[in-house]
């Protein structure tokens, strides 16, 4: 057992936070248990499923495989930080539009991975997207609609960058 504690300064979803936690605390535990951000889920204990994926300094990482201490001085973004106020992120809108989720448990991880992908890649081919999703296990969707969601998110992102397309939030209503 290990009683030592560490102080961690990090920003989570744009907010600066200082926490003191046992040094063995995982980033996923820091988010869920210490900060109460339960949108990030944990689906395995061997770093395979990707359900716990968040962003750390702009990289999509599996938060169950990173010690909270490693996130010191980092900027972490979770599913709770994807939207801008009431405006949902393109991947959030796309996952709903394309039925990219069923039970919703892997969805936060899937979306953080997808959001990272569309920020860094513009390749809309199925093959490229399926390769990019390799770090994710989803048991409900058969991935088909997750792939379509990523393609749709790329399209939404492009529209958002075009000034005429402002104010399309009605896509997610109902």
């Amino acid at each position, binding site marked *: 057992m290990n009683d030592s504690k560490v102080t961690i300064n990090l920003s989570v979803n744009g907010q600066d936070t200082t926490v003191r936690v046992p040094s063995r605390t995982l980033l996923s535990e820091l988010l869920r248990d210490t900060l109460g*951000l*339960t*949108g990030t889920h944990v689906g395995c204990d061997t770093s395979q499923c990707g359900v716990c994926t968040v962003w750390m300094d702009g990289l999509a990482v599996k938060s169950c495989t990173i010690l909270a201490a490693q996130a010191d001085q980092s900027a972490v973004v979770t599913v709770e930080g994807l939207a801008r106020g009431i405006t949902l992120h393109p991947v959030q809108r796309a996952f709903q539009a394309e039925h990219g989720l069923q039970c919703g*448990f892997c969805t936060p991880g899937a979306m953080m991975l997808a959001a990272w992908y569309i920020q860094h890649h513009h390749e809309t081919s199925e093959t490229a997207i399926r390769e990019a999703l390799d770090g994710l296990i989803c048991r409900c969707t058969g991935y088909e609609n997750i792939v379509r969601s990523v393609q749709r998110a790329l399209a939404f992102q492009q529209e958002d960058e075009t000034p005429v397309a402002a104010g399309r939030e009605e896509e997610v209503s109902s």
Partner: protein
Amino acid sequence: MSRKLWGENVARREDIRLVQGQGQFTDDRVLPGMLYAAILRSPHAHAKIRQIDVASAQKMPGVIKVYTGSMVSGHLGTIPTAWIPPDSQLKMVPHPPLAVDRVRYVGEAVALVVAQDPYQAEEALYRILVDYEPLPAISDPVQALESSSPRLHEEAPENVALHWKVGTDTDEVFSGADVVVRQTFRQQRLIPNPMEPRSALVQYNSATGDMTAWLTTQNPHIHRFLMSGILGIPEHKLRVIAQDVGGGFGSKIACYADEVLTAFAARDLMRPVKWTESRSEHFVATTHGRDHYDEVELAGTKAGRVLAVRVKTYANMGAYLSTAGPGVPTILFGLIVNGAYDIAQASAEVYGVFTNTTPVDAYRGAGRPEATFLIERIMDVYAREIGMDPVELRRINLIKKEQFPYTNPFGIVYDSGDYHQTLDLALKTLDYASLRQEREALRRQHKYMGVGFSTYVEMCGLGPSQVAGAVGFQGGLWESATIRLHPTGKATVLTGASPHGQGEETTFGQIVADRLGIPLEDIDVVHGDTDRVSMGWGTYGSRSTAVGGGALAKAADRIVEKAKIIAAHMLEVPVGAVQYDAGQFYPEGSRERAVGIQDVTLQAHLGWNLPEGVEPGMEVSAFYDPTNFTYPFGTHVAVVSVDPDTGEVKLLRYLAVDDCGPAINPMIVEGQVHGGVVQGVGQALYEGAVYDGDGQLVSGSFMDYAMPKARFFPRLETQRTETPSPHNPLGVKGVGETGTIASTPAVVNAVMDALSSFGVVNLDMPLTPPKVWQAIQTSMAKGGPS
């Protein structure tokens, strides 16, 4: 009735919270003063427990209490099985929540630690000293029947959990048939792996005796029913809540020791207690699926007419009988082994066998994938034997449209269908003729492509309660619905179904919106709470829309009925003169005078001026028991390539043509098909639980158990036909399991087609590269492809 939303791809209402990380899954919940439980599990497949020493664990920091089997056994009932198939000679063996003097599988619960934080609970597990005396173990169901094999239970001296026979006498047909084909099949054990691990959080109020249990369950009312008995808590004092549940696939039907123990500790310590399994625990402690050895025989003519089919099955039950376990390889399997074909004679004989493995229960499809696999595979074996195209063979034997309702050899009545239509649509979509040509052309270049079919039917929408009773299911299978219209005309809809990914918050909303003319955004569908929903039987067996939707339609019609009487009073016309359409009540021919359902509802609540004899308020409940199961069907086709140098199978195309009756939300239906297909392909090509000779699960993590990944698949193609079922008011059939049921044999048939020139007739799943490569090598050694 106008149908504005029926058939529309309405975006799912549950997504609004789920895409924002605001779902409420069991493990997300934190209660003041909450403690954490961890469970010590047996590392042995079979052992006597000589002694358990918890003294050191008890002294660990943060540890509140350590429980062993002998401490709880007088205070807790055993874990029950709730399916007792008649004439199965079922051996009801005791299953204590914590092992007392013997463990029978790796993962069986041996001790429970409750501590202040989860780390402390986990650490204390390592300080519990258990003195085990290992015993010989057996994991294979056929070997377990040998007289020299270790025995698990005194009550089952031969390890036989059940022996069940069903069907007609097929001996005469077989002895006189021109063609008889025989094949043995292995349907390997699978691990359900919903992405959310199981979890339980239980709070007990010692003053009132009220207990609230947040559980990862597909059927909260069944959990309340069973746990009430095990814990000795009156049913009205136990509230089970399953808010957001992260997938189930059958593995969250069963009542488990883990949640019972968590509840026991919460009551004993008078503090909330939470337990959440790790994925590693899930692999050994959550029920598994399938695990059959099957011997199949088919008798037919040289011209391709099937005369009889006969199945003998050895089904692995695991070490104990899980909640629905005994019903899966019997009722849900044996009664439909003739599949979608008009076969006059059929029989099934099943041995359910105890082994030193994790208990086996329902896994997506539960029995019906196993039955479908057998008939679809043996049809291809037969086709090859008589030199006929498998499509032609299917066309000859499929039940014809005019034969419905069709009574199969087991007395099951198939509702409706046009099986040939789905086959024709599949052939047209794929351009089968050119696919065959392509296959031949590639073969000349020593490239191996295969096309495999599965023309399936399944029995789902469980089901009429009378039948449930007749087949030994220890519960009803009807469903309840309540529609509560508030004074402002907004609606709360309560359903006894308990969706966990299937989207009924949306589809049920669509049903109510259409029937009552209320906007979808004014309707909330509530499920998964035994205090809010009076009773229900939950979500499994593709039953929710067929049965729960049926109850909802009935309730909505009753709302309209009552509202019509009040509307007539408001309009000052006789009730018989009131027309109703889309939320509007009006005198015949005078739509401009219409009063809306919201106005009527307000009047019903105010009660100032109601017609004589009409009660105030606007809330009705309906309990709906279907007249029969529903029988979705279709044609699935897989196109694969096999690399002869590596044995790698690549899925090139996958087409699913399904008929689940009219689709309320085609987008959701399609999503169900996608997920089901990928799970079924998982069985064909990737997944398999492997036990070693000592009963250790060697495929016990995502590193060792191959889950399907996105890059393994091409784009999935789907098509639908719509044949309504006469068995429920909506005409719908279940669709949650069709993909899993149909896809496994389609893919295996495709691989066998690709390997046909190597003379390979059958290989055991999963069809991994080494297995396929080895089969090719064996063929090459005998002279190579024909």
